[in-house]
């Protein structure tokens, strides 16, 4: 497992601090850089504006180019950017206006505004990085979010964002700034669980959510935005998957990709596992038909978080490895599997006793 937090010796600061760790000075030096002075076992000492800053990490782990967020009085730092990973995500808020049955990050009441720090962190990311933004619901703080996006786009035109949003909070007048940000800079990941408004609303725990979502998607379409539509398969929406496929074909021809996703056993997903997890290794038919439909319509469908052996052979090409490196594991039987290189395996928190029934090496 890869650490997303690192132990540090607390710094005498009153404001949150963003620091980039460097093994040696680089050309594009910034005031946020700390240069390594000394490594001793798991203890690394950096020089930061003449002060000493100490970070603890496993001896062979590279921290070069990583960006940390250090909060006043805390003995651990958030590793906001791991320079050698494609899976860097900023959690910009823990507040949310939905309460989805499968939520992996159940919402919290309070919000700490760290957008300024996150904007600095983004500006320190490696070239051409894609930065994930998630929550909670990021657009609950829409003005601050847009400020950050505009600031970073101006200073770092090479960066791209992948933003997860429930699309409840787009207004028609947002189209203009979406256009200004550029449709290839941001991929909006937007969940839709059913084409039946009642079912969708029930799954996300908010009445009227489907209607707002339709309005949000229409705004994104008008703005020419890039959208990854996301549907987690659940017992609750399994019979609706074909309806979603047809909804996409008639209403959402503009999306870049449709992600059909397996459930993550964490947060509410864990709490509701027994009533929500759909064993697609035993019955894949609705997902297969959904893929058949959108593919013939010339749209792209992907299966996210499906172990390859849970997918019938004809559909394995639709199942890329999607589980982030720091969340991924394999099981005993994966050792003898010829597909392990291309298979994304399982979430760390997957429990095989309650999981797929029909798996095995292929």
């Amino acid at each position, binding site marked *: 497992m890869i650490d997303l937090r690192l132990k540090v010796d607390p710094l005498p600061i009153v404001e949150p601090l963003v620091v980039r760790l460097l093994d040696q000075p680089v050309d594009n030096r910034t005031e946020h850089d700390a240069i390594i002075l000394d490594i001793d076992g798991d203890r690394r000492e950096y020089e930061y504006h003449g002060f000493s800053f100490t970070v603890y990490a496993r001896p062979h782990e590279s921290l070069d180019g990583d960006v940390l967020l250090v909060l006043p009085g805390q003995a651990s730092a958030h590793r906001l950017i791991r320079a050698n990973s494609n899976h860097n995500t900023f959690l910009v808020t823990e507040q949310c206006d939905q309460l989805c049955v499968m939520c992996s990050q159940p919402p919290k009441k309070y919000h700490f505004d760290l957008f300024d720090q996150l904007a600095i962190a983004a500006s320190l990311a490696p070239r051409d990085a894609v930065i994930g933004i998630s929550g909670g619901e990021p657009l609950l703080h829409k003005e601050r979010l847009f400020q950050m996006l505009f600031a970073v786009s101006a200073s770092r035109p090479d960066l791209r964002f992948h933003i997860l949003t429930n699309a409840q909070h787009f207004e028609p007048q947002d189209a203009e700034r979406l256009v200004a940000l550029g449709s290839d800079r941001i991929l909006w990941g937007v969940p839709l669980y059913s084409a039946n408004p009642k079912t969708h609303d029930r799954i996300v725990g908010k009445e009227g959510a489907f209607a707002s979502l339709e309005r949000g998607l*229409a705004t994104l379409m008008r703005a020419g935005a890039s959208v990854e539509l996301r549907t987690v398969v659940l017992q609750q929406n399994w019979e609706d998957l074909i309806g979603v496929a*047809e909804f996409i074909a008639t*209403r*959402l*021809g503009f999306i870049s990709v449709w992600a059909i996703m397996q459930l993550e056993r964490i947060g509410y997903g864990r709490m509701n596992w027994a009533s929500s997890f759909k064993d697609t290794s035993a019955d894949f038919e609705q997902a297969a*038909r959904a893929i*058949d439909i959108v*593919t*013939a319509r010339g749209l792209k469908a992907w299966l996210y978080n499906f172990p390859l052996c849970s997918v019938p052979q004809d559909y394995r090409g639709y199942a890329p490895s999607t589980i982030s490196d720091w969340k991924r594991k394999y099981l005993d039987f994966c050792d003898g599997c010829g597909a392990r290189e291309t298979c994304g395996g399982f979430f760390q928190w997957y429990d095989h006793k309650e999981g797929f029934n029909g798996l095995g090496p292929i």
Partner: protein
Amino acid sequence: MKASRVLQIVPLKFRPTDDGALLFADDAGGYFKADQDFLERYVDDSLTQSDHRFLDVNGHAFDGVGDLAYSGFEYRFASRLYSPAELDYVILVPTLRCNLSCGYCQVSRVNETTPGFDWNGETLQAVLRFLGGLSTKRIKIEFQGGEPLLRLDVIRHVQAFCRSKFDHCEFVICTNLQEVSPEAWAVLEEPHVFTSTSLDADRATHQAQRTKNAQKTSSFFDNFDAAVNRLGPNKISALPTINPTNPPPATAVIDTFVGYGIRSIYLRPVNHQGFARKRFDARSSASSWNRYHSSFIDALIDFNWDADAPLEEYYFTHCLRRVLRSGHNHHADLRNPNIIGYSYVVIDHDGKFYPTDEARMVSRVGQFDLSMGDVFSGIDRDKIDMLNSEALNNFHPDCVHCPYQAFCGVDLVDDLSRYGRIDLPKHLTDFCQRHTYIFDKIFSLIYSEDPKVGKSLAIWSGAPRFDSSFAKVHR
């Protein structure tokens, strides 16, 4: 029971089908089958709640302008309209000379030794200047003729120039493969060079239509064998030209192409020009072609049922995808509006620009002058733009009633060349007859319950299986 929700229904067009039902379609390409009763309710404005529910789910209705159903419809409608991209595709005819004399090619060739039908040094320089002025970073150059391998020197000049100027170059050489020198093989083997040739069904047909004697036939087939071996089936395409009044059996064509490992077959009807064309009445030639093409598609379906590597007819696949998808506008033969003279141009042996190869032929037989300037004085689109302003089926008085309008296109140059005018009632044109047939055929297959048909449709539509929801019937 009458509907309570105030839904707006988009305009629907319809056409009777063989099974006694009606096929309905809208301007964005959404379709379904229903019966006469539904038609009456639609016309009388007495649609039921269940009608409304169906039309809503199937994308033919919306609550209000700007809502998601409305915008989704607009999006599908708009992406079916072709808008020309920047010029990145140039067809070059460095010579009209040819070392074959195929029956139906009288107007696009001269004898191998005839002087005066080649680019000279000035033409080549002017063409290179023209290419040098393009803003695209990716270029596709197609060499046609005549037989372009007779001007390998020109091919090489153009290649060298393009490779120095563009980030990415693709070259297609349309050759009869009759005589291929070692130097020519070297060019064909280069990366990003593709070979396109004619292979008329089988040996007998090829000889009758093209090579005329056994010796020339053998040299073609020897070279073709060599080409498949040396270049691989992915770098070579072969078009069978079919004479619909005397066509080869479909299985003969299939066997030949399978034998060479070529999986995509693009059947072309003989394209008579000038006097030869006048001998063939447009109506009867379209119907014999349609009959043959339909039987060919049936033969492919049979073949694919238990084949390891399936086949397609290229144009049929294209039309099927145009039925199912929006934005499938990449093929120049079927576009709406069919704006010509912008994203690609032809440069003839005398340096004149034409918007399409067909326009070059029409001009060559003296029917109309559809040239648009030349490489010495530049592109002049005045005439072609007049044609372009009519090249749209959306407001055509016949097409507006046709359920195939969203999938179909226009080909005014074809109308001009066949009838000398562009205002014939559509159903009298060869273009309309061929496309009415092909979409009839596509829908008869989409609504077929034969698993063999389903398997081929899946392959041709690019999906693992062909879903039954594409054959919606509203009752």
